[in-house]
């Protein structure tokens, strides 16, 4: 347990592992950008970037160089200070999340927080402040609309997200990320399938990806909150977006896929963790490439009329199971939970209408 903490000195430990986390986050983000752009190819019957380097592996590097060399343009009427600070405020919380993610048995890299998941939930929502600052400071109607939409989506989807996390916390009986990994022998995505579904959907909405990318809906508001950003500042937002995706995948892997647990976890626990993170991310790519963007009212309706009640009921059921089995849920309950999840999704689908009040034309 102590082999990953070689430093007695507080500052040495802090300095070294901050650099490690930073490097992991940046390298991971570049890898994810490549995986997504490359992964979109086969889904859309095309190649994806394949010119820069072998298999296009250097494409993110080329992108980074291009974006660094671009001119940094600030609108004349922008709020200059806020405009400058927004990318930093947007990107920093994403980095902070990685401090508590347990890469290996025993602990997160920086601290070993006993309220790890609470910290993650608290920090990850801070990124939206940066987005709103960007939207406001740009002095552009599209960016403001995009930012306002982000706030609305964030407030709505934070609740099902947290409620689904609480279900996992209830079973494992701890807020520590490491204790959650060791919480049950069965991965939680099997034990609480509904919770995983709600978490995945809310997380995708929270990081504004896939069918929920309301904040930069290209066809409606051009590029949303970062319409007035270019060069390095734009790169920061881009990094923050993918960094958030990486963080959410890592958290999903930790909470629902047992993180570093796998055969030979003492030696290659980090590898297991990364593989699981990648699998979650590929799942997100698949969802993103398949579904068209939701309209803003559909987004709200989906959160409040479908996800939120279901998350509450899910929490109630899990709470009942934890109390009923005295904290130790037997493995066969996963079949019951799958059946209950199916029924709940079926019933929940009646709770909201499609079309948002428009008249449906019967053919």
């Amino acid at each position, binding site marked *: 347990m102590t082999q990953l903490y070689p430093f007695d000195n507080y500052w040495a430990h802090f300095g070294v592992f901050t650099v490690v986390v930073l490097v992991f986050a940046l390298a991971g983000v570049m890898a994810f950008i490549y995986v997504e752009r490359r992964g979109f190819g086969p*889904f859309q*019957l*095309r*190649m994806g970037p394949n010119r820069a380097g072998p*298999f296009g592996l250097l494409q993110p590097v080329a992108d980074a160089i291009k974006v660094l060399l671009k001119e940094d343009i600030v609108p004349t009427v922008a709020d200059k200070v806020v405009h400058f600070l927004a990318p930093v405020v947007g990107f920093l919380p994403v980095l902070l999340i990685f401090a508590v993610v347990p890469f290996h048995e025993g602990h997160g890299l920086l601290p070993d927080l006993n309220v790890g998941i609470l910290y993650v939930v608290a920090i990850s929502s801070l990124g939206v402040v940066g987005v709103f600052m960007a939207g406001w400071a740009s002095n552009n109607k599209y960016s403001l609309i995009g930012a306002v939409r982000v706030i609305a989506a964030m407030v709505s989807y934070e609740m099902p997200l947290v409620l689904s996390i609480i279900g996992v916390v209830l079973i494992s009986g701890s807020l520590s990320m490491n204790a959650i990994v060791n919480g049950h022998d069965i991965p939680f995505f099997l034990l609480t399938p509904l919770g995983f579904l709600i978490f995945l959907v809310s997380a995708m909405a929270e990081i504004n990806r896939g069918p929920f990318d309301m904040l930069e809906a290209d066809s409606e508001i051009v590029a949303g909150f970062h319409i007035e950003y270019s060069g390095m500042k734009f790169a920061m937002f881009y990094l923050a977006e993918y960094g958030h995706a990486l963080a959410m995948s890592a958290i999903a892997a930790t909470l629902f896929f047992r993180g570093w647990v796998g055969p030979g976890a003492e030696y290659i626990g980090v590898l297991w963790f990364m593989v699981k993170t990648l699998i979650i991310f590929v799942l997100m790519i698949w*969802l993103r490439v*398949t*579904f068209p963007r939701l309209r803003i009212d559909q987004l709200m309706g989906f959160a409040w009329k479908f996800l939120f009640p279901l998350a509450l009921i899910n929490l109630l059921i899990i709470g009942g199971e934890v109390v009923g089995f005295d904290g130790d849920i037997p493995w066969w309950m996963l079949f019951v939970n799958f059946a209950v999840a199916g029924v709940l999704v079926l019933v929940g*689908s009646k709770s*909201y209408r499609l079309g948002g009040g428009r008249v449906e034309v019967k053919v």
Partner: protein
Amino acid sequence: MKLKFEHYGKGLAKGLGVTFQHLLRHRITTQYPEQRLSVSKRFRGYELVWDKERCTGCATCAKSCLQGNIEIVTSRGEDENKYVVEKFEVDTGRCIFCGLCVESCPYDALFLSREYECSTYRRGELVLSRDQMERTEEKQVSGYFRPEVETGLPEQTLLLDKAGRKTQQLWQ
């Protein structure tokens, strides 16, 4: 009242299925510089191809040109029956590739080519001289208005097939 469940996500599952099937199909991208599709048999490509032997220097092509683009200067040579073409110039920068010169040629001495990479660094390079247009073995002649050429040309391809794709290097 009969309960009907319609929106429980079967559409979502169907959509996911469709994109998953895309993973198993071969990709439709043609990687242009390495892979090329074969153009239409009657493709009206860049540059004209001029058959020196057949041309009599009648200048019908120059008269038919909408752009007034073809410049032809002839002189009376030693052979009484035939003019010698001294200057034959086409500015392809102004050419609209209508093919009227090819259609009007009474001796079938003018052809369009199948070439399509026509970008140059200078406008002046677009002006084709007599020697540049002269028909040689390696010049690809289009079947436009020349049925006897058309029969020998390969079929047009719209997509690369799976087999053709496997044999070629896709990236370096």
